[in-house]
Every structure is written in structure tokens, then in C-alpha cells.
């Protein structure tokens, strides 16, 4: 038996994803966004999270998946990776599960349209498959800069 891992489960399209509970600050309903000019399209803007200004990115657009309308079940998961605090817009977030480290396998090249670089692995639970994010890469600032340069 490996170490237990607690994951917040959220969904994008038909896939279910997991992010470590200790990286998650809070989960919020959709709230008004202030657009920030000249940022990549997936940066949706900034929100007022109880007095703190937090940038929010749309995870679908971040990975080039088809954008959808925001609904009642849309959630913003506020995550923190080192000094970076960011809100992730996901289709829904509704569960917390315990996963054994042993249940996590290396990710295949592409899952649900997302390249392996952004993934930490895949957790196989009894009846479901959870894709684990590599937050470090997802929130990689250098990549924003590259994207900006491409856009110019």
C-alpha cells in the first residue's frame, strides 16, 4: 500500500480530473470577472476573492478544448502552487476521493485532448478513471510568455 492521496474531483467535458486537496484553497461559484487586456484568451480576468485579487483561467481553453457556456454547475477552483494563486474554471466540481499512490499510473501521451506534459498520472478507481494534473506545468508562467510572443 502506498500513501493515501486526497483529491478534489472536477470535470471537463466527459473526463474526470483530480487535483490534490492541499493545493486547493477554496471552490467558488462563478462570479463577476474583470477582463485583463492583452492576456492570452484562456486568462478570463481577475476576481475579487474576499478582498484579494485573483487571476482566473479557463481550463478548457487552457488546453484548447471547445469552450462552453458557463452554467450553474460551473466552478472556480482556487489553487495555490508556491507563490502563484490562480482560479481554474471547470465544468463542475463535486467530489473528494482518497486514492492510493499505488493506483496511479503514468499518463498516456494524450488524454481527452490534453498532452501528458500537463498530467501527473492516471488513477484507476473501481468504476472510474481520474486524470491527475501537474499543476506546476499547468501554471507555468514561461508558457504564458511564449503564448504572448506567439500572439504578437
Amino acid at each position: 500500500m502506498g500513501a493515501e492521496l486526497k483529491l478534489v474531483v472536477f470535470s471537463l467535458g466527459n473526463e474526470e480530473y483530480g487535483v490534490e486537496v492541499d493545493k486547493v484553497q477554496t471552490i467558488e461559484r462563478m462570479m463577476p470577472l474583470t477582463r485583463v487586456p492583452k492576456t492570452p484568451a484562456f486568462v478570463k480576468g481577475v476576481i475579487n476573492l474576499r478582498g484579494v485579487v485573483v487571476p482566473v483561467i479557463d481550463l478548457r481553453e487552457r488546453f484548447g478544448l471547445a469552450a462552453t457556456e458557463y452554467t450553474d454547475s460551473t466552478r472556480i477552483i482556487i489553487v495555490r502552487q508556491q507563490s502563484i494563486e490562480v482560479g481554474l474554471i471547470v465544468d463542475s466540481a463535486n467530489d473528494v476521493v482518497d486514492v492510493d499512490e499505488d493506483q496511479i499510473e503514468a499518463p498516456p501521451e494524450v488524454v481527452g485532448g490534453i498532452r501528458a506534459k500537463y498530467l501527473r498520472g492516471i488513477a484507476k478507481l473501481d468504476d472510474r478513471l481520474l486524470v491527475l494534473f501537474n499543476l506546476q506545468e499547468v501554471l507555468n508562467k514561461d508558457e504564458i510568455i511564449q503564448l504572448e510572443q506567439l500572439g504578437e
Partner: protein
Amino acid sequence: MESNQYLSMFIDESKEHLQALNDNLLELENSPSDLSIVQNIFRSAHTLKGMAATMGFEDLANLTHDMENVLDLVRNNKLSMNDHIFDMLFKSLDALEAMVNDIVEGGSGKLDVQHIVAGLKAIVNGDSAPAAGSPSKQASADLHLSGGLDQFQLSVVEQSLQSGFHVFVIRVRLREDCVLKAARAYMVFDALERNGEVAKSDPSVQDIEQEKFDREFTVYYITKLDGQTVEHMIQDISEIESVVMTPIDAKALAQMREHSSSASESKPDSNTGRGAAQQASGANGQAGSQTGGQAKQQAGSRTIRVDIERLDTLMNLFSELLIDRVRLEQLASELQKQELTETVEHMSRVSSDLQNIVLKLRMMPVETVFNRFPRMVRDLAKNLNKKVELIVTGAETELDRTVIDEIGDPLVHLLRNALDHGLEDTPGRIAAGKPETGNIYLRAYQSGNHVFIEIEDDGRGINRDKVLNKAIERGIVKSEDADRLSDHEVYQLLFASGFSTAEVVSDISGRGVGLDVVRSKISSLGGAVTVESKLGEGTKFIVQLPLTLSIITAMLIRLANEKYAIPISSIVETTLITKEDIRIVQGMPMVRFRENIIPLVNLAEVLEVPNHELDDSAEMNVVVVHKGEKLAALIADEFIGQQEIVLKTLGDYLNRLFAISGATILGDGQVALILDTNALIK
């Protein structure tokens, strides 16, 4: 070790003492015969020694001890200051500073200071050394005379001596970091009274109980025990720094009787005498530091040290309050209920007073940065073999702590520049018909929402041609453009990167990496730096800094559905223009403003505001903003109004944004971005 909790206090205080030592030494250098300055230096050194010894930093304590020996000779007129002694003392200070810095960085404060110690010892062992011993001996004799016992107490002591009791004068000194002084003193008395009788105590028992004493007290103690036992008994109590026992025998008593009538006059004498005696015996207490300690206590009662993090928290909480205030004001004006409006108005007034106080709490005098400059200038001048006087004014001017923390290095650069490039060397000054000693003025003053710091020298001034030639050589300016540049523009070239006009690259001003770094540092603080100069007469650098970085007044504007804040400090004017006012110059829309034709910026287009259409059928709102002397007009859909806003960062994820310097939260909870108009002016 238990003293760990006192370490940060020790570091703070030793830095203060080092600074005081530095300042006083510089002052002494100007008026070497002023012994009151020597006293001050001595006190600082002594306190430092005591603190270092308490904290177990022996090298630090030993070095200060040797400095103290030299200073002691000076203050007793046994030695007069000369250049060599000054240099030695400054060297010691540098070593002390290095040690303290080592401690700050978690080291043990150890440093090899043998040569300095040897140097100091050599000074002490000069001709004046033997004479130094004599006052101490005299003083120790005086100790017995420092009676202060009245006739009744004297007879009690006499009788006790006759019936075979021992009588001691015991001086107990508590440790500097002792928190409950009265409690410790009580424990001493308790221990003493179990085995004897306290005939008299100085200060009185009542005063001691109320902590009305500095760190030490003296008791006359009658007991059957011998001196050693008593001493051990007292030293077993914790937080006692030293115990000095002086036995009183019949002979001493006789002397005391003799002097008791003139006790009042002899008392002050005996005080200093006691000091000298103790200091000669190497113990950590003497009159000088007593008075020093008292003075500090008085100052201490008026100020307290506060962790800067708490101030930051206070500031954050207040920001929240400010946002709610704006919200309340909005609600009140919507609801039109008089009682509510009155309450909100009152709350607004209180909170703006509160805001002033909170902002003031974060303000520090620029002195905290300036005070290291006199020493630096002195050393540099010696290095360069120039004669320089630094004249500092307005050191009490206050700036936000964040600015204070950052402004030191740029100012050092500018001062070095003035010394190295600005001022001529002595022969050069004589040739130019100027006094040998060059002046550097360092001035700080507040004007409106800004603080200005000027560094001016009366040196050779900036040579326009030299600067231009260099700039052309470095490819910063094209030779055909050279003549068109105004003097002001030429001087600004000094701030271009990779520019240095010094003919010899010196180790003082570096390799021309200075001024561009200065400029970028200052602009990152929201400030600006300009230079004025007259050839042959001198150069003046003017640094403009914002008073505070956390709450600013801004103009809120609307672009379609988006709101932006423009800091008032960058706004020149708001005005209205019509389509007819716009003319196209070289494909760029321009507009007349006062005497100038300035660029017109369609803000919504630049910021890519969605669903925005420029309505130029009627009059348009424009905000004229400036960056230095350059102006631009920005088109806004609507002016919402002027507001105090709290600056918030956008976090680490979004940095290096175009034309956005931060964000603020409006009364309705929405986030509005703060425009960095500098990016919009080319």
C-alpha cells in the same frame, strides 16, 4: 539557548548603537575637543559591550571593551584624539558592524580582530597609560565613603561590627534583558533577609518594589555569613548580571562617619568614582551607562517597537474597511435616509483620520537611509583624496517604509557619482578658483504627494560636448541629431545603459552601470529622476518619489462596460474635445492642448475593450496624462469620479502586463484595473 528570543532585540539595538557610534565619531572628528561627544560614544560602546557580553558574543564584547579603554583615556583628558586614533576607531566600528551582520545572518559573530585589538591596545599603552590607572585607584577608595547612612544606621552598623557580624556593601546589577526587575530584586532581598538584615538600600525598598530603579541597587547588609557565601547566594538567583561585595570594617566605618555630615556633596563625586572603580575592575556597570540607560528608558516610554508584519496586517484590514466605506457611501446616497447618511458621513470622517494615522505609521524619516551617508562620504573622500563636506537637510522628511527600503542603493550611486565625477580634485578646484573643500548637498523635502531628494555638488558640472561625444561613440545618439538636442535631453543621456563619462574607470563609480540602474530602480518605485547642471558650477540630481505606495487618489473612468482607475498623480487635466479638434499628423491622431499638439490615444482600442464603439459625433471626454514632460490625451467614455483606491497586486501569475500597474476593489466589489499611463506615452 534562552537568549534566542532576545536576539532580534539585540540586533536592532546594536545596530542603533553602531549608528550612534558612527554619527558621534564623525561629529567628534569635526570638533575633536568636545568631550561631551566622547561621553556619548563611550556610553554607546559600553552599552553595546554589555549587551554583547550578555548574549555571549565574546569577540564583540572584547573589541568594544578595547575601544572603551581608548575612549576612557580620551574622556579623562589623558589622550587627545588624532587621525590615527580616529582611523583605528572607525576600523573597529567596521569590524563590529561585520560581526553584527554575521550574527544577523545566523553566524556566531566571530571575527579575527587581532590587529585592530593590537592597534587599540597600542594606543592605550602609549605614554598616557600609567596615568590612567590612578583615578581608578582613587575611586575605589571613594567607594567606602559613599555612605549615605544616617547617624542611626551608622550606629547600628557599628554595633553589629562590635558584636561580630560582617557588614557588606553589596551592589547587585540585573541583566539588561531582565523583564521583572522588581521581582528579581525582591528575591535578592528575600534571600538576604533570611540570613541577616538589610540596614539600608539605595534606591529605597519602596522604589525598588515599584521598579523605580535602572538595573542596579546597593544594600548595606549585616550578617553572620562570610562574603563568599552571600555572593553565591545572590548569584544563584537568575538574571543577575553581577554582584560586587565590599566589606566594611571599623576603619571604613570611621571614615564614613567623618563624611556623613558632608554626604550630600560627596555623593555625586562618589557616583562617578564608583563608575571608574567598576570599570577598572572590568565589571559591567558604571555611572556613565546608568545615565545612558535612564535616558533611553525615557525615550523608550514614548515609542514602542512593532513587528512590521503587524503594520502590514493593519494596513490590509484598513483597506478592507475603506472598500466597505465606499460601498456604504454609495448605499447611503441611494437610500436617501438622513440618519443613515449622517452616520455614514461621520464614519467617513473618522475613517479618513484613521487612514492618515495608518499611513503615518508606515512612514519613516529618510534619516534612516541618510545616516549611513556621512560615514560613506568621509571614507570615499579619503580614498579619492578629495576634501568634501556633506550637508544634509530635511532628514526628518518621511516616506513610506517600502520606499525607504528600496531607495538606499540609488542614493548611494548618486552620491558616489557626485564625489567621483562631480567634484574636481583639490588642485582642480584651486585652479578653478573654488574653495578646496567641495560641498555635496543632500536635501529631502515634501511637496504635495511627493517627496523630493536632491543630491547637488558644486563641482565641474556636466560637459555637454563630452556627454554627446560619448553618446555618439557608443551609438546612443546619431551625430546628425546631436545639435538638435536640448541640454536637458543631453543630460538625460547619462541615464542610458552602458554610459560612463569618467575618463578613468574607478572602483568607486563602477563602469557606467550606475545611472541606468538608478533610473530603473526609481521608476519601479513610481518615481522619477532628473538632472540639472551648469558647467563649472555643479550638478544637481533630483529624485522624485511618491509619498506612499498603498493608497492613492485616482480618477475612475468607464470604457464600454469596463472601469479603469488612473492615478491622479499622472493626470494633468480632464477636458472635452470635438471631432474638429483632432488632426492627423503623420498618420497619428493629435489634438491641441494649451500650446502643444499632443497625441490622442483611443484607450478602448489600445486596451482591446470588447463591444466598444467610439462615438465621435458629440464631445469626447479626454484625460490628459503626463510622463515627465511628455503629454498624451486619452479618450474615455465617461468620468466616474475621483476616489481613494487601495492598490492590490494582480498576483504572481499575471506579471509584466501591458499598461496595467495593479488593481483595486471598488465599492460594489468589482475589480477595476489601474492604468499605467506611462506605457501609453511614447
